[in-house]
């Protein structure tokens, strides 16, 4: 065997790559540490002030489960939160579907309209959810309605983009076939586009319901009602055992709703022709 005629190229030498990796790691961790220092966010506080966490835990445990039957309004709050998420998801999906038809290149009647819709949706996606909520709170008053509307608008942004993209990616073959038989634009959409996008729409709706459920809890804290509101009230009254009970309720609700949603989703996908 003759000696290697080539030597390892410099860029592949382990020592060179090691040095590069170390430098990158140092820069990255240096920046993170610098940021933490700047924000006066001391990670060691996690350990130093851990007794605060211990104290809090002591105050939170055991959770006040008795609250569940002493305060039936908790259950109605739970239903409120679920309803908020439910309506927001459904309403948002319905409106978004219509908007998406205008926002997709292959179904929009006018190119300018597409640009308008897309920009609106992008703008909505970047608006902080709770800013919309704050405005709505002034408009329709405190309560779950404002939160529901805010979630609906939020879902609009997400659905709108997803649906519009899905519509644009539809296979044009069946559409051409239907158009060739003399169908109107609306009919092409009804029979050609919708069946193709329906599965992904349904999947997204279920995913969004899950997301909206958590968001509904979050918005409740801002005055949106529901279990989030109760949780925040308990916290501000320093009744931490109640707060933990609410939290447990939230977790149970999310888990149960995931299963329920799964069930319904399987129902929809198992039957033929439910999707029109």
């Amino acid at each position, binding site marked *: 065997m003759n000696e290697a005629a080539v030597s390892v190229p410099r860029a592949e030498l382990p020592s060179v*790559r090691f040095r590069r990796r170390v430098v990158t790691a140092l820069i990255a961790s240096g920046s*993170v540490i610098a*940021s933490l220092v*700047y*924000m*006066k*966010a*001391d990670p060691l506080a*996690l350990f130093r*002030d851990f007794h*605060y*966490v211990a104290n*809090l835990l002591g105050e939170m445990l055991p959770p006040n489960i008795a609250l569940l039957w002493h305060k039936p309004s908790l259950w*109605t709050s739970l*239903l*409120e939160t*679920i*309803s*908020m998420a*439910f*309506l927001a998801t*459904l309403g948002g999906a319905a409106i978004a579907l219509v908007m998406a038809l205008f926002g997709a290149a292959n179904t929009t009647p006018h190119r300018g309209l597409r640009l308008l819709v897309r920009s609106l949706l*992008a*703008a909505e*996606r*970047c*608006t*902080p959810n*709770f*800013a919309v909520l*704050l*405005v*709505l709170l*002034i*408009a*329709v*008053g405190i309560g*779950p*309605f404002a939160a*529901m*509307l805010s979630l609906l608008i939020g879902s609009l942004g997400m659905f709108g983009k997803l649906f519009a993209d899905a519509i644009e990616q539809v296979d044009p073959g069946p559409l051409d076939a239907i158009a060739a038989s003399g169908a109107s634009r609306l009919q092409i959409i009804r029979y050609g586009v919708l069946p193709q996008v329906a599965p992904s729409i349904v999947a997204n709706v279920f995913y969004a319901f899950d997301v909206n459920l*958590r*968001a509904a*809890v*979050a918005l409740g*804290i*801002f005055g949106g*009602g529901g279990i*989030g509101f109760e*949780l*925040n009230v308990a*916290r501000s009254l320093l009744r*931490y055992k109640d*707060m933990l009970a609410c*939290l447990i309720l*939230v*977790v149970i609700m*999310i*888990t149960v709703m995931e299963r329920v949603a799964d069930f319904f989703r399987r129902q929809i996908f198992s039957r033929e022709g*439910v999707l029109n």
Partner: protein
Amino acid sequence: MTRAVERSFAVRWRDFSLGRYRRHLRRLTLLAALVVLAAWRAEVNMHDLITGLGRGLSMVGLFLPPKWDAFPEMIEPAFVTVLIAATATPIGALCSILFGLAASRNIAPAWLRAATRTAIALERGIPEIVILLILVAAFGIGPFSGVVALVIGSIGMLGKLVGDAIEEIDPRTVESVACTGASRAQIIRYAMLPEVLPSLLANSMFRFEVNIRASVLLGAVGAGGIGYELSTAMSQVEYNKAATAALVSFALVMAAERASDHLRSKVLSRGQLA
């Protein structure tokens, strides 16, 4: 076509039957009932909405024009918001590697895997804002609580992804490395991490975008930054200032979205990690 054939092709009223929707009827009524019930529970009030719309639209006038000279004082809080997300994401990503290893069938013993998976599910189930409330109760308000809350939230998402990715690694690759006499730690380092890291990187960038939005939200509950400015401006009825803050946070989120999309496509196209 003859008249007779034409007549037979002509659509008649009785052809319009809703019969074929009959089997969906049960499901549709259920849906409708749910909607009505939910609307009642969520205190949907169309009347309020319409009057509120009017009120809301006139309110918009209160918000405009945004107070432009408040802009400079928004820069620092915006920076803090970005920093919170920018520090929480890498820390969360690192921790999620550990969590992911502990949550995978091929590496962790069954009890550890179950415990870690439950922990991750909890972290995903509890909204970050609630986590923040708890942290604020323990550590007080400020960016620290925000960072910790976002780290926990990031672990919830990234930990699951890493755990799933590790479980999906081709066991034959692992076997082949093991046959050279490699130890468990070396197998993780050379057979598992290279497969997992690129997707973790891409997902972390997506998570960064999510974290920026969350950071704005958490700011309003005490983590500081632009969210805090927005909520204080609103509560002090300084709507123009609030509008400025909202615009800044809007710009922030948009910039983060662009940056994350761009970087993600670069990482995915390169495919290889140094």
